[in-house]
C-alpha cells in the first residue's frame, strides 16, 4: 500500500526555501483587521524536497502512460505526444506571458493563435475558429450557445436538439446546459443515422443535429449528404463533434459536407497530451454566418500596422466562456504538430489509423464479434457477447488485458441494443506499429482461449497490477473524499 503524503509528514521537515528578508519590520496585525486573518495556520504537511520527489515518482509509477505501451482507448485517440512540442511550450517568453500584459508585448502569442486559426480553417473547411474553449465538452457548450444565439437573433423559437444514441454523453449534457430539449434517436441496422427517423423528427422547432463522423462505433455515415439536406431543409444547423476527426484529415472536411459548426479536441486528433484528464482544448470552428456569435474575444490582425490584437466580438457574441483567451499552451502544441505533419503527414495519419483499425478488425472479428461487420474508420467496435455463455463479461476481458501489460480499450461504450452490447471499442491510432498490433492480436486470442478454458483467470483479473479490482459500491456507501474523512473513520 502506498502511503499518503500526509502519512509521511514529520513536524519540522521543509521542502521550500524563502529569502532571508521576510519583512519582519511589517506586522500582520498592523496591515489587516482581525476579521480577515485566519485563526490558525492551515495544516497541510511537512515533508522535505527529496521525499516529495520520491513520493510523486512512486505515484507516477502506479500509472500507465502512453509511453509505456499500447493504449487503444476508443474515441480517445491516444496518439504519441511529440517532445519538441513540449519544449516549445515551455519557452520563457510564452510561459511567463501575462494574459493582460500590453498588447505590443504579446505579439508572439497572438500570432500563434492567429496562425492556428488559419490552419484549422483549411483543415476543416470552416471560416473562423475561436480558441477559447478549454475542453471538448466546453466546446460543445460553446457551440450550443452559438446555435441558440443564432436562432434568437433570427427570432426563431427552436428548442430541441437531435442526438443519435451513439453519441458521447457530453453531447446531450451540453445541449441540456444550453437549455435545449434533447431528442435522442436510435441508429439503424448499419450503425449509422436512420434517415427516415431523422426526417420524421426534424422540424421547425429543432435547432439541428449533433453528429460525430465517423460515429462512435467507428463508422462513416454514408448518408451524410441526405442528413445535410434534411437538417438544412428545415432551417436547422449541423454540428460536428470532432472527437473522431482522426479518420478524416485530408480525406473529408466537415465544412465540405455541410457542417455549420465544429468542435475539435486538440488533445485527441492534434496530438496534445491528455495529462490524465486534461488540460486539452475544445476549439470551435464556424461557417461565416455564425461568426458574429463566437465568444469574445477574437484574435485579429491589423495589416497597416502589422500588429495582432484581441477584439471584442460585438453585441451578438455569446460573451466569454472562460477567463482570458485560451489554453494557450495547448494551442501552441497543436500549431507545432500541424507544421510538423504538413498536408502529407496529416493524410498519412488518417490513412494509417484507418488501416490499423481495419487490420485489428480483420484479425479479431472471428473471436470478438463486431457490432457491425463492415470496414471501419479509425476505430473498430467489437463485442464480448460470445463469452457470456462462459460467464465472462467484457469487463473481465478488459481487466485481463492489463495482466499482459497493455491498457484495455474502451468498453461498454457505445451501448445500444441489439447491435452494440458488451462492446469493446479499439482505436489504435497512427502511432502504433504493425508489431504492436500483432502483439495485441496475439494477446486477444490468448484471452479468448482463457475465457473458454480457464474463465477464473479473467473473472479474477487483473492479477499483477498495483491494485486489483476495486469496491466501487463501498466508495459511494462510505464516502472518504479527503484524508480527514479517513482519520474520522479511524478515530470517530
Amino acid at each position, binding site marked *: 500500500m502506498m502511503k499518503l503524503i500526509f502519512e509521511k509528514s514529520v513536524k519540522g521537515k521543509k521542502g521550500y526555501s524563502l529569502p532571508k528578508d521576510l519583512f519582519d519590520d511589517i506586522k500582520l496585525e498592523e496591515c489587516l483587521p482581525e476579521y480577515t486573518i485566519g485563526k490558525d495556520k492551515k495544516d497541510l504537511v511537512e515533508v522535505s524536497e527529496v521525499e*516529495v520527489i520520491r513520493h510523486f515518482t512512486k505515484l507516477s509509477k502506479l500509472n500507465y502512460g502512453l509511453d509505456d505501451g499500447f493504449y487503444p482507448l476508443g474515441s480517445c485517440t491516444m496518439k504519441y505526444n511529440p517532445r519538441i512540442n513540449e519544449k516549445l511550450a515551455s519557452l520563457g517568453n510564452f510561459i511567463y506571458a501575462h494574459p493582460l500584459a500590453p498588447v505590443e508585448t504579446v505579439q508572439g502569442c497572438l500570432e500563434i493563435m492567429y496562425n492556428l486559426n488559419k490552419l484549422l480553417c483549411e483543415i476543416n473547411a470552416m471560416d473562423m475558429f475561436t480558441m477559447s474553449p478549454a475542453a471538448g465538452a466546453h466546446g460543445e457548450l460553446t457551440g450550443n450557445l452559438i446555435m441558440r444565439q443564432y436562432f434568437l437573433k433570427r427570432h426563431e423559437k427552436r428548442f430541441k436538439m437531435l442526438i443519435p444514441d451513439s453519441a458521447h454523453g457530453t453531447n446531450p449534457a451540453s445541449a441540456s446546459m444550453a437549455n435545449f430539449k434533447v431528442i435522442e434517436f436510435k441508429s439503424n441496422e448499419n450503425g449509422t443515422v436512420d434517415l427516415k427517423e431523422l426526417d420524421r423528427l426534424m422540424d421547425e422547432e429543432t435547432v439541428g443535429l449533433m453528429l460525430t463522423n465517423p460515429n462512435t462505433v467507428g463508422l462513416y455515415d454514408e448518408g451524410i449528404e441526405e442528413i445535410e439536406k434534411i437538417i438544412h431543409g428545415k432551417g436547422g444547423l449541423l454540428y460536428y463533434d470532432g472527437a473522431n476527426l482522426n479518420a478524416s484529415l485530408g480525406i473529408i472536411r466537415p465544412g465540405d459536407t455541410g457542417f455549420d459548426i465544429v468542435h475539435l479536441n486538440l488533445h485527441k486528433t492534434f496530438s496534445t497530451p491528455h495529462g490524465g*484528464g486534461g488540460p486539452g482544448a475544445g476549439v470551435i470552428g464556424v461557417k461565416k454566418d455564425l461568426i458574429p456569435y463566437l465568444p469574445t474575444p477574437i484574435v485579429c490582425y491589423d495589416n497597416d500596422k502589422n500588429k495582432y490584437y484581441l477584439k471584442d466580438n460585438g453585441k451578438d457574441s455569446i460573451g466569454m466562456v*472562460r477567463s482570458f483567451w485560451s489554453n494557450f499552451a495547448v494551442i501552441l502544441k497543436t500549431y507545432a504538430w500541424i507544421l510538423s505533419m504538413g498536408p502529407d503527414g496529416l493524410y498519412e495519419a488518417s490513412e494509417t489509423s484507418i488501416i490499423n483499425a*481495419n487490420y485489428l478488425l480483420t484479425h479479431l472479428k472471428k473471436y470478438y464479434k463486431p457490432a457491425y461487420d463492415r*470496414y471501419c474508420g479509425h476505430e473498430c467496435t467489437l463485442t464480448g457477447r460470445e463469452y457470456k455463455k462462459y460467464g465472462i463479461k467484457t469487463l473481465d476481458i478488459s481487466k485481463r488485458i492489463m495482466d499482459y501489460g497493455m491498457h484495455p480499450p474502451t468498453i461498454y461504450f457505445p451501448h445500444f441494443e441489439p447491435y452494440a452490447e458488451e462492446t469493446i471499442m479499439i482505436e489504435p491510432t497512427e502511432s502504433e506499429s504493425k508489431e504492436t498490433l500483432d502483439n495485441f492480436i496475439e494477446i486477444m486470442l490468448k484471452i479468448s482461449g482463457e475465457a473458454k478454458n480457464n474463465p477464473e483467470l479473467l473473472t479474477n483479473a487483473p492479477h499483477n497490477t498495483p491494485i486489483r479490482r476495486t469496491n466501487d459500491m463501498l466508495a459511494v456507501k462510505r464516502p472518504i*473524499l479527503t484524508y480527514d474523512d479517513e482519520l474520522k473513520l479511524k478515530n470517530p
Partner: protein
Amino acid sequence: MRYIPNTNEQKEEMLKNIGVSSFEQLIENVPDTVRLKGKLNIPDAMSESELEDHVVNISQKNSDFYSMKPLIGAGSYRHFIPEAVKSLLQREEFWTCYTPYQPELSQGTLQTIFEYQSYISRLTKMEVVVPSIYDGASATAEAALMALRLTHKNKIIISSLLHPHYLETVKTYLTPHESELINLPFINGLTDMEKLKSLLDEDTAAIIIQSPNFFGGIEKLAEISELAHTKKILLISVNVESMSLGILTAPGDNNVDIAVENAQSFGMDLNFGGPYNASLATKKQYIRQLPGRIIGETVDIDGKRAFVMTMRAREQDIRREKATSNICTNHNLNIVAANIFLSLLGTEGVYKTSLLNMKLAHYLEDLLLKSGKFEKVFDYPFYNEFLLKSKTDLSLLKTKLLENNFIPPLSISRFYNHNNLENVLLFAVTEIFNRDSLNKVAKVLSE
C-alpha cells in the same frame, strides 16, 4: 513521417491482410462528392529543427518575459515555482496517460487528486472538494448553476467586484436558463452592505462575492453569509488568488456555502491565460449537485487501500442530459502541479509565502504613497493587490516600467468606467519581488 512507425511495405501487407487492394477501398462509403479533392493547402512539413527555429522566432516577438517581473495580477499571478514541480511533471506517467477510468492502472493520478482534495479541504475548511474544473470563471458559473438547482430559485446577486471575465462567463452560462442576475454595487472598494440588505429576498438563490475582490479588497464574508442565511440564500465565495488562503480567514470559517478557488497560484505558469485550474469546495449536504470528478477512497478485492472516481451518478457519461454538468476532460495535470507545489511548501511554506506576499504589497503601497505621485483610492484592507490613483499620465508610466523590465499594473479603466477610477492602477505583488526590486519600482514610478 517520424511520428508514424509503419513503413509503406507494412501498410501494403496490412491492406492485403484485410483483403483489399487499396486504401481507397476502406473508405469507399465516404461519398465521392464530398471528398477533399487534392491536398490540404497548408505549409509542407517542417523538420524538427526548422520547426524549432520557426516557433522560437515567433516567441521572440513577445517581450523577454523571463526577465520581466509583472506588477499585474488580476486573476493570473506569477509566483515562484520550485524546480521539483516542473521536474516531476515531466514524468510521462502523469502527462501521457488518460482520464483514470481504469483504477488498476491509474492509482498515481487518483491518489494525487485525492491528496489535493484533502489539501483544498484544509485550506478552505470545507468538507468536499471537486478540483476538476477548467478555471475560476467556469467554476464560478458552475457554482451559480449548482445554486439554482439546490434552491429551485432563479435570482443571483453578483458582486460588481467579481473578476470581469468571471462575471461575463457567469452571464454566458446563465443566459439560456430562466434566471436573473442582479448587480451588487460597491462602496469604498468593498461590497455595499446596505444595498445588499435591500436586495435580499426569498427568490434569491445565491450571492456571489469575490474576496479578495477585483480591487484587492478583503470582503466581510462572515457578515454576508449571516445575512444570506437568514433568507436561506447560498453564499458563493470566489478566490482568484489562492495564495491568500495561507493567512486569510478560510471560507469555511466564514460559513460560505460554495467556495470557488482559482488554483493558478499553486505551481502554474502564466501561459498567456491558460491552462489553469479551479476547485469547487462545499458542504457534504450539497454533494449530489456538484459538477465534475470526485475521487474517493475504497479498497480492492485484496483489502488494499485504493482510490476511484466516485459519486459518478452525477456525470455526463452516466446521466447524459440529466447530468449536473457536461464537464469531462478538465485540467488534471494542473492538479498534479498544484499538489506537488503544496506538498513542497507545506504548512509553514504556504503560511510564510502568503504572509510575505501581503507584506510586500503593503511595503510597495507605502513607498508609492510616500513618493507623492500616487494617492489612495479606497481605504480598505487588501492582500497582495491594491488600487492607487496616479498623478502622472499612465502611458508614460507604462513606457518607463517596460524599459526597466517590469510588466505594468492593470489600468482599471480597461474594465470599469467610473469617474473616480480614471488614471487608477491595480498593482499586484508576489514573492518574486524583494526589497530592492520594489525600491526600484518605486523609484521608476516616482522619477
